[in-house]
């Protein structure tokens, strides 16, 4: 078993940043120095020792809101990306493994492929915006938008690695051993194909946080007064041109740092999977050995 500690500095920074983000999401509302939903008497104060990120026009302590917002943004991301991963696994399997299935399977696969193409033909922000318009602003609509936006990526990753596994002759060897299609898929093909999708989870968490913030910034996301980064940024937007920069820029900085951490963690996970022999290197080995089986049989 390979060590779980990342070898590169970037990987270490990423994992530490992601860990801090998760800790803030769990205990954030309790460690916030002020109530993130109740204004203080200090209005439009610059960052200082009493208010590290300053205060907004109503007197809210920005630091407390930012710390409390970890929970909102990360729980949306976890729920949305979790659902997307499962959905992507299902859709990707239908599409990528169709060559081994029957006629109905292949017909389903064509529908899935067509749907994935149509979803790709609309810009992400535009589509998410339309969805929140339809379902009304709120956490549920944002999670739905996250699912719609991140599922196609998982489905495509699973599809392309399943394709190469199928072409590698794994299915033929499983057939010879007398295994059914579903068993071949779940026990042999999928375990060899999920690595890129697993590495993508952390990247998708970042995408989800950015999307949640963007929607809230546009007034189409989480309902106030729920603490959320994009909403705070939009509240401060009107004050930036007059010099009160901290209301918008501090929450954005924290948002960026947490997204960067997720991206770096994703990179570290990819490297770890490659090093642990769960990645394409392992795939090649299987391809090679099953190729042998095919020839000798």
């Amino acid at each position: 078993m390979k060590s779980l500690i990342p070898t590169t500095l970037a990987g270490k920074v990423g994992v530490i940043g992601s860990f801090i983000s998760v800790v803030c999401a769990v205990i954030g509302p309790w460690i916030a120095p002020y109530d993130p939903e109740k204004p203080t008497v200090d209005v439009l104060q610059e960052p200082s020792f009493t208010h590290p990120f300053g205060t907004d026009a109503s007197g809210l302590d920005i630091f407390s809101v930012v710390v409390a917002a970890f929970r909102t943004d990360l729980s949306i991301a976890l729920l949305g990306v979790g659902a997307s991963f499962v959905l992507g696994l299902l859709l990707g399997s239908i599409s990528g493994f169709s060559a081994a299935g029957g006629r109905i399977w292949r017909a389903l696969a064509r529908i899935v492929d067509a749907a994935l193409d149509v979803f790709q033909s609309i810009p992400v922000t535009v589509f998410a915006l339309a969805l929140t318009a339809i379902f009304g602003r709120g956490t549920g609509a944002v999670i739905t938008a996250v699912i719609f936006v991140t599922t196609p990526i998982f489905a495509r990753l699973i599809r392309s690695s399943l394709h190469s596994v199928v072409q590698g002759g794994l299915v033929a060897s499983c057939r010879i051993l007398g295994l059914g299609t579903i068993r071949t898929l779940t026990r042999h093909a999928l375990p060899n194909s999920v690595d890129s999708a697993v590495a993508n989870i952390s990247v998708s968490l970042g995408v989800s946080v950015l999307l949640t913030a963007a929607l809230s910034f546009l007034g189409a996301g989480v309902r106030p007064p729920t603490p959320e980064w994009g909403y705070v940024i939009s509240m401060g937007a009107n004050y930036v041109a007059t010099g009160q920069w901290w209301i918008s820029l501090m929450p954005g900085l924290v948002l960026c740092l947490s997204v960067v951490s997720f991206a770096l963690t994703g990179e570290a996970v990819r490297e770890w999977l490659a090093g642990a022999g769960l990645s394409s290197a392992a795939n090649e080995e299987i391809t090679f050995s099953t190729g042998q089986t095919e020839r000798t049989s």
Partner: protein
Amino acid sequence: MGRFLLRRLSLLPVQLFGLLVLVFFLTRLIPGDPAYALAGGQATAEQVERIRQSMGLDQPLWVQFWHYVSGVLQGDWGTSIQTNSPVVQDLVQRAPATLLLMFFSLLMIILLALMLVGWLLWRPQGLARKVVSGYGFLAGVVPDFWVGLSLVSLLYVQLGIGASPSGQLDARITVPPVTNVGLIDAAIAGDPPAVANAIAHLILPCITLIFVYLAPVIRIMSAVTEKVNGSDFARFADSWGISPWRRVRYILRFTSPTMVTTLASTTVFLVGGAVLVETVFSWGGVGQYAVAAVTRSDYVGVQGFVLIAGLFTAMVYLANDLLHAAIDPQLRKA
């Protein structure tokens, strides 16, 4: 070539049909009675009934879809609730401003990408590599609206570069609206101070889009050129002792299909970026119109925007594939 073109063009109707199905179902997914939602908050019972009949909500779904599609094809995209005018007219009025923003940003992205990649090819190690990999890392991790606000704070408030984030021209300047694009209208009116003002207003939103959307282009292009740099054909070219300038040209030529695809997807991303950046800078284009439509529950307006964005995307990807056929001889033979 002919067969490739035929196959690609025959894909277009299928894509457009899928887009229409999606946009049609957007309004049919509204929880509750869509007629109430589409009529807006202050509608009377008769208005709601009229909308119900015009949408044919009492008829089978495929009849409704047929009505919608034939309306869209005849240029009837419905009436916006927020502006009370036809959606097509609203979009046509605002699209040039958005296109101007996207065009300038894309032009600069192409120029800067070529320069950075050329630099990387010229000096594969050293500073170029550090700059490119450091900057490419920013791809997809910075929110465009936050970058816009940071630039306003840093460049406009602190250094006095650019203009206030409030539209395409200062409020005190008025030019006769011909195209509804501040810069072009000022040029038509022959008013140099107004043109200068319009350019000042264009600087910050364009830098925002360039800074955010150049990063993924650089990331992909540097990965591709690095691969080509170590390839057999590059080593062969080296062994012939060709000039470094020629070498850069050969490799750029070889990577041009990837470059074209990357730029096509960047153009599509820019549509989403324009929505956010227009909101930050009160630009008054289709993106800002769409955001207003969402916050005011103007479903017809939202529908129109999704449709126009989808059409635009389909056209961009079509152009991408045709360009590929033009530059890639392997595709031409197929």
